[in-house]
C-alpha cells in the first residue's frame, strides 16, 4: 500500500528564523519582560508567583499526562480486561500483565498488572492503545519512592475510582475522537 501523503501548511519563515542577531535580541526581550513583571507585577494585581508545594498543590490541566493509572469501576473491579495492547504499545516496556480468567461475563482480568514508574516516560501511548478506556493518564505526579521496589506499582496501587478520573476521561472523549 502506497503511503498516503498529507500536505501541511507551514507558516512562512520570519526574519528571526534567518538572522541570529534578531533571534538573540528577541530572547533578551523575553528575559527582560519577565524581570519587569516580577519586579512590578504585584502592583498590577498579581497575587502569587510561587506555589508553596507541598502545602499547596497545583491542579494541573486535564491535558497533563501524569502517572498512568487503572480505572476502577463502581463495583470495585478494574475495567481492564488484560488485552495486552498497552503492554505492547509501551515504548519503554514498563507494563507487565498476566491475565487470568473470571466467571464474570468479561471472562478475563489482569491477575498481575505492574507499571515500573521508574521507566515510564508518560508518553500516553498506553492510554491511546487501550480499547476499554481502562488505563488513563492521571494528574498524579507524585511518584518518587525511597526504594526501587517502591517504583514498581502493582494493580492495587494503580486502581483509581472512575469518579476521580472523570476530567481526564471527558477530555479524552472530546479530544481523541472516541
Amino acid at each position, binding site marked *: 500500500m502506497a503511503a498516503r501523503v498529507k500536505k501541511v501548511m507551514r507558516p512562512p519563515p520570519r526574519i528571526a528564523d534567518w538572522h541570529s542577531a534578531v533571534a538573540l535580541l528577541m530572547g533578551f526581550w523575553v528575559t527582560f519582560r519577565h524581570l519587569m513583571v516580577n519586579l512590578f507585577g504585584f502592583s498590577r494585581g498579581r497575587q502569587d508567583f510561587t506555589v508553596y508545594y507541598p502545602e499547596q498543590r497545583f491542579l494541573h490541566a486535564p491535558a497533563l499526562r501524569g502517572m498512568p493509572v487503572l480505572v476502577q469501576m463502581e463495583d470495585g473491579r478494574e475495567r481492564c*480486561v*488484560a*488485552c*495486552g*495492547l498497552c*503492554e*505492547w504499545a509501551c515504548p519503554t516496556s514498563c507494563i507487565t500483565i*498476566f*491475565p*487470568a*480468567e473470571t466467571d464474570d461475563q*468479561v*471472562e*478475563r482480568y489482569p491477575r498481575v498488572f505492574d507499571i515500573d514508574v521508574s521507566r515510564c516516560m508518560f508518553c500516553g501511548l498506553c492510554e491511546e492503545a487501550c*480499547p*476499554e478506556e481502562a488505563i488513563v493518564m492521571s494528574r498524579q505526579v507524585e511518584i518518587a519512592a525511597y526504594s526501587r521496589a517502591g517504583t514498581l506499582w502493582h494493580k492495587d496501587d494503580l486502581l483509581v475510582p472512575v469518579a476521580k478520573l472523570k476530567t481526564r476521561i471527558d477530555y479524552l472523549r472530546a479530544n481523541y475522537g472516541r
Partner: protein
Amino acid sequence: MGEDVRIIVDGRAIAAPQGATLLQAMLDAGLDIPHYCYHPKLSIDGSCRLCSVKIEGMPKLQIACNTTVRAGMVVHTDDPDVAQTRRGVLELLLLNHPLDCPICDKAGECWLQNYSMRFGSRVARTVEPRRKHGKRLDIGERMLLDQERCILCRRCVRFCREVSASGELVIYNRGDRSVLDIADRRLDNAYSMCTADICPVGALETKDFHHRLRVWFFTQTASVCPTCANGCNIAIDESHNRIWRLTPRRNDAVNDTWMCDAGRLNYRFVASPARLRQPLALRDAALVPTSWTEAIECAAAHLLRVRDAYGGGTLGALVSPHLTVEENFRFGELLRVLGTKQIAMAVARGPSDNFLIKPEKAANARGVRELGLVSGADDGLGSLIDAVKAGRVKALYVCGDDIVRVLEAPRLAALLEALELLIVQTLEQVPAFARAAVTFPTTTFAEKSGVFVNFAGRAQRIMAAIVPPPGWLNDGEIFTALLNAVSSRQERFNPEAVWAHIVDSTAQFSRLTLERLGTQGAPLSPAGAPAAGQAPAT
C-alpha cells in the same frame, strides 16, 4: 504428478505441478492470497469465498481453492472486483462477529483480524444487533467453543471427520442460523486441540491456553516433541523464559500439521517446582544439595574407585532415550574411557494408535540404538539386570527415570539394593534413587540444542528455547566434565562440534550436517554395518 504447468498471476509467471489447486500454487509461489476454509491437509470445502480471483476467459470470479491449474491460465488477484469481493466477504463475516478481540485468545494470530485490517472496510454499516450464541461452552476435556466467533469455515468439522475420524463437530441449521456444536459426544479425541490451531478465529480455544498470555509476546523456537517416538515437529512459544504453549509445525514427512493432545500438554514439567535445581550428594544416608563442581568431583572419584577396585567391566550404565544424540555420544565416550561393557536402555511404553502416537514414550530411543550404544530386542536391559544380580556389575550410572516406569518397584529396589555405587541423572528426585551417591539434575528438551532420531529414523533438530539458571550444566556438559575428570582430556561440550564429529565417524549419520537437517530433519542413511574403523562407541 506430471509436468509442471505455467500460469500467469498478476503478470508474473509461476510454475505449478499438474493437478494442483490454483490457491496452493499461488501460496507456494509466495503470494499472500487470503483464504479461510482451505487447508492443505483437509478436503476442499469452498465455503468462505474469500479466495476468489479473476481468471481470464471466465465470466465470474472463481474460488482459487477449488480451481485446478491449467497451462496458460491468466489470473488476476489485484483486480478491483477481487478487492470488492474480499471486502464484501469480510463485511458479511463481521456482521455477527462479537467485539471480543481484547479477551480472545486468538487475537494477534487471528485470520479475521488480519484480513479485516488488510482487505476489509473500516466502517460498519449494520444497525441490527449482533446474533447471540453460546460462549465459553465446555465442549470437551480440553476444548472450549465460542459459537459467536465462529465463521463457519468448517475446517474443524472436516478435521474431525477426516483426520481424527471421530466426527464430533457438526454445523446445525442453515444460512444465517448456522451454528457449530458438538454432535452426540464431546470433543475428546486424542488430537482435539488441533482444531484450535486450524480454527482461523478464536471460536475453538484450548483450555490450557485460555487467557494465558498474548501471542505477540512469544518467541517461537522450532523444536521436536519429546513425548513419544514419533517426533512431531513443534514450535515452542516462550516468553519471560517460560514455555506457554507448544504448537505443531508443519512437516509432511512426520506429522503434517498435527500433534496429539498429550504431546501438546507435556511442557509444564519444564517449569515444575518439583524439578531438581542442584546436584545432590549422599551424606550420612541423606541426600544433601551440593555444588556442581563438588558433585562432579565426587562422582568421578566414586567411578574411579569402583573401576580401580574391581575393573571397568563392573561399571554398568543405563542410557536415556530422552537425551540428544550428541549427549549420548559423549556419554558413550565417557563409558568407553571407563571401560564399561554393560550398557542398556529403558524406554517406557504406553498407549499408541495408528496415526501419530507411538508406543515408545521417548523421543530419541532410535538415536541411541543408531549410535550402537545398546543392542538386542530389550536394549540390553535383561542382560544388565542379570549382571547386577550375579554381582558382575557393581556400579550403575542411570540417566533418566524411565527405569522406574519399566521395572516394577520391588524388582527395581532389589536391583538397586545389589549395587555398590549408584549415580543418577534425573529431572526430579525419585524415591527409588534415595541411595544414589550423586544425583545430577537433568536438562529438558527446551533448554538445549541437539538432534533426536524418531522411530522411523529421521534425524531432527531441537533448539533451546529457554535459558537454564547460571552455572547450570546440561547433560552433555556433565558427561564432558566427568570425562575430563577421569581422563586427561580438556574438552568442552559443544553440541555442534560433537554432531560434526558424529557425522564424520558414524555411517548412518554421514552427510547429515546440521544445515541439511534444517528445521525439517532428514532420514538417516540406510542402516548398514558400520564400516571398519568406524565402529561406534563402546
